[in-house]
């Protein structure tokens, strides 16, 4: 540490916002080991697809809520160190809130009127009802459940796991997905860098056009990075022919149990729908409780199997 000479400072200063003790406590390091995805990538892919199928197969908030809770539980169980759930949580909350708000403002159907907007307002004018709000909430819950269901593919798995999860015929698609996931983190970093640099050149956020100064260089940089990545892939023989995989395909009992339960849940929901069993919820004209089928609840709970993490699952071969 160096001595501070004299005074004579100018006007601009910033005060720290966190106590020193807390800041010291934050001095942490990430060992940086690859993620702890103890389940085979293909089992994760099947689980995610099954959970999304269940979430989108019905607009019953009970089932959707169950899927969302199960997916959240699975994510919390398997989230690798250094990865954060908060950005996703914020995004899904905002998406759900927006869906509920839009349905509340544009629905105008239902018996229980909460408030009324002037009829002169195009699209929005009319009664705001409890039923519209509730149905909007169910739509939002569906979004939350679907997003949380696919979140393991980016939060728990590494990009190469996504490649391994794809069937051989879709391997190139998997590579494209993996490289896209890699570019996403670079996109965020470039955005921060460009925004900071432009701010220091006097840029201030204003109307939509002012963001051109940030978005144009960020997009151009992303395109340049993509071209460089394509060059790098070609230079390492990408496209030479039939590929092999470095990963060992380890589909054990745990994977079989998870996949069977997930596929059973998806098949159950599709089957119940086809059989004409009431699976949906329609709260109009007056609010009612959603119908609940014990079999469907069991199917949702079956999706929770990955949340039961056995000690052996903490190990992961590279």
């Amino acid at each position, binding site marked *: 540490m*160096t001595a501070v*000479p004299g005074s004579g400072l100018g006007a601009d200063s910033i005060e720290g916002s*966190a106590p020193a003790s*807390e800041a010291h406590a934050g001095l942490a390091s990430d060992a940086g080991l690859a993620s702890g995805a103890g389940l085979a990538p293909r089992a994760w892919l099947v689980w995610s697809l099954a959970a999304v199928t269940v979430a989108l197969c019905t607009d019953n908030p009970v089932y959707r809520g169950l899927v969302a809770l199960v997916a959240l539980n699975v994510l919390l169980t398997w989230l690798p160190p*250094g990865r954060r759930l908060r950005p996703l949580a914020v995004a899904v909350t905002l998406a759900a809130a927006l869906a509920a708000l839009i349905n509340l403002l544009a629905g105008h159907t239902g018996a229980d009127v909460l408030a009324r907007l002037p009829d002169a307002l195009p699209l929005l004018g009319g009664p705001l009802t409890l039923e519209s709000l509730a149905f909007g909430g169910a739509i939002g819950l569906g979004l939350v459940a679907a997003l949380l269901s696919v979140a393991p593919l980016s939060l728990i798995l590494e990009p190469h796991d996504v490649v391994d999860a794809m069937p051989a015929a879709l391997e190139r698609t998997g590579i494209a997905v993996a*490289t896209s996931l890699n570019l996403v983190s670079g996109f965020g970093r470039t955005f921060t860098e460009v925004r900071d640099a432009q701010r220091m050149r006097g840029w201030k956020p204003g109307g939509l056009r002012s963001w051109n100064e940030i978005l144009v260089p960020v997009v151009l940089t992303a395109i340049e990075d993509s071209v460089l990545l394509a060059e790098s892939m070609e230079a390492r023989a990408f496209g030479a*022919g039939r590929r*092999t995989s470095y990963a060992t395909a380890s589909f054990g009992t745990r994977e079989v149990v998870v996949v069977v339960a997930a596929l059973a849940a998806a098949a159950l929901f599709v089957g119940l729908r086809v059989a004409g069993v009431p699976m949906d919820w329609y709260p109009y004209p007056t609010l009612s409780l959603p119908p609940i089928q014990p079999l469907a609840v069991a199917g949702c709970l079956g999706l929770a199997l990955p949340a039961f993490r056995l000690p052996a699952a903490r190990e992961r071969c590279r």
Partner: protein
Amino acid sequence: MMAPNGNAIARLDGLSYWYPNQDEPSLRAVDLEIEPGLTLVAGDSGGGKSTLLRLFNGLVPQFHGGRVSGRAEVAGLDPLRSPIPRLAQRVGLVFQDVETQSVYGSVAREIAFGLENLGVVRAEMRDRVDETMAALGIEGLADRRLSTLSGGERQRVALAAVLVLRPLLVALDEPTSQLDPAGAAAVLAACRRLAAEGRAVVVAEHRLETLGPAADRTLTVEGGRVAAGDAQGGAARGAARATPGYVPRAAARYAAWEMRGVATGPGREAVLADLSLAGGPGEVVALLGPNGSGKTTLLRTLAGLLPPLAGTVRRPAGRTAYLPQNPGALLHLPTVRAEVALTLRRTGSDQRPEAMLAAFGLDRLADRYPRDLSSGERQRAALAATLAGSPTLVLLDEPTRGMDAAARRSLAAAVRALTDRGSAVVLATHDTELAAELADRTIELRGGLATELRAGLATELRGGLP
């Protein structure tokens, strides 16, 4: 034309190359033979070094298009016509920016990518990955995520990812430009080992002081022409850059900027703690330290872009200029001149863009689209755009990355002009030459702490920090 040499791994014969829609060739009638050993490729930014390296593995012209004349043979194949995946088995290329060339997120998988593409069976793949990692001394990183590696580690992983294909010729484009001295030394050692194994290792570099003495031969690429140089030339040129007799200023009597008891870091995790630093007007403070030691974090905190977790930061009244690590990213206007003019207009300066353009040798590039420039030229354009408008505090993050000797001289002159007008300058760099040349005070960041190095370290710094 050079006399044919039976030992040569690569041979170019009267080769010229034009990028698409360009009237001027980027390579002009190149006659060249590359033998086993370490070949250093020097030359100014935009001279054609990267194009030459891309020619070895066929990316030029096969990926980039354009026109070509002349003949070429690399490792027994014709890089102008042989499929790139086939060339990839004999020629490896490590690109300048290792962060944008990763496909996978973890070390072992990234290294294995090329083998997967060639359909190598799993057992052999594992053996070759292990063997390559061991050869480069990175076997302990196998299960690590790339994002957690230091710059030197990441560069060696990128090198391993091409070496695993067992190429006869390995080309590296400015491999040490983003590395601290320890990382650069590790990469240099790897290159020397490969050369000793009988491979041809071709390294394009501006940091000649590190690689020059180790090279078996030096080539200079200027304006698309390739000429032979001598292996020690790099070291001599590097030393000549320093300004003899440059006298550090006396300590300022008052601080232009100050950090008192600062803890700071991205998110809410402090990477620097209990930091008290200050710098006077007209003073240049250099921040040194390994990759990840917090240099960028300190600069961003001082710039006001990252609020400190604890403590106080004070800056002088007036404009603070900040050059980020990847300054080319901020360029978005149609010409270099327009970029400089934008900063001047925004800061209310009555300066004319021409003065800044001339200061950085950008006169002839003033009307070019910044993103069509080479990385070194782009760096200069970003510097001109950043430093325009008489800032009172100047923060530079790795300003010499990818810069040639002429551009570094322009930068040094610009920094001196700023300090003569009373601007305080803080620069974070791995370039110990630059720090020795410009800095009045040098601060090393390591393990979350800042230590002021004793004055008069210039000579020692040129040899690299321990």
